[in-house]
């Protein structure tokens, strides 16, 4: 049997989904088209099979089990949502505290201030002071002990250079 272009519209015709105008055209066509007649009969047969199948219903017990299982899962979802909300609140509180602390820290400069008299002055070595400032330290005031030690060192050196002879 030859194919017919209108056959593809048979589903919509069978299901009552065509416009009134199109429906009339298909009905006119059906009178003389055995291909479409057969297609339509086949569709009606399939629909009849579905309609003839007895409906399967959930029993009361099955419905109860489904609802119980669904409720358990829903409860878990609700708990998870609450936990997420709580965690979100906690996070927001922590962020607020951090922001407040940061603002306070920046307001107060570098943190706790120490009165100048309590500050410990670290005396850097001479070479470091020179390196940092590029200025030579002024001549240090020599103590008497230092001068005496220098004199003894000079004597000792002369004594050695002269071989012990005066």
């Amino acid at each position, binding site marked *: 049997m030859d194919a017919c272009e209108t*056959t*593809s*519209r*048979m*589903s*919509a015709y069978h*299901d009552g*989904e065509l416009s009134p105008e199109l429906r009339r055209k298909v009905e006119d066509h059906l009178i003389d088209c055995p291909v479409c007649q057969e*297609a339509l009969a*086949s*569709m009606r*047969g*399939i*629909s*009849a*099979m*579905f309609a*003839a*199948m*007895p*409906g*399967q*219903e*959930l029993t009361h017990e*099955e*419905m109860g*089990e*489904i*609802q119980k*299982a*669904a*409720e358990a*899962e*829903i409860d878990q*979802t*609700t708990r998870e949502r609450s936990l997420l909300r709580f965690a979100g609140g906690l996070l927001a509180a922590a962020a607020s505290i951090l922001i407040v602390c940061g603002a306070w820290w920046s307001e107060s400069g570098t943190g706790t201030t120490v009165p100048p008299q309590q500050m410990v002055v670290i005396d850097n070595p001479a070479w470091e002071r020179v390196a940092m400032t590029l200025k030579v330290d002024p001549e240090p005031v020599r103590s008497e002990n230092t001068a005496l030690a220098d004199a003894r060192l000079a004597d000792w050196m002369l004594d050695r250079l002269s071989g012990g002879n005066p």
Partner: protein
Amino acid sequence: MPESDLELLRSTAGGDGEAFNSLAERHAQHLFRLALWWSGNRADAEDIVQETLVGAFKGARAFSGRSSVKTWITRILMRQAAKIRGKQRGRRQTMSIHASDEGLTMQSGRLAVESGTTQVDQRIDLQAMIQRLPEEHRQVILLREAQGLSYEEIAEVLEIPIGTVESRLYRARAGLKQRLNGYS
């Protein structure tokens, strides 16, 4: 006066468990029938319905109201059914059919349908035939034949154009007819 589906869903979104139960009871049977056709056995069908109800609860807040609640829940079911389908492989069972209606008899697990006018006696296992259809064909034929949805509703459920619904349904029926002819 009973609340509408939309009112129940809005209450569900607000955390009203009673509203959710009412909604579940209202839709459970038609969801189960579709799930049973889809999966072929009661245990999987129950799982699908359960997951669908949970999905509806979770998604209640996001419901836009552009489609009906029934269409929306059916869409959730189709998604859940596709997920559960993967699990059922290897333990496929044929749906148990308790034929009690006039014109139906069970013969060795096969359904005999007698037409009142032509007395055509086709011994078929419709469930098995449907299971062998490509998924997109199975979807449209079940939504149409088992759920009685209009083309517009099917288009909403599957999020496809109406023209695609029509063409898929035509091919689905042609495929089913071919399989039934080969079976008889």
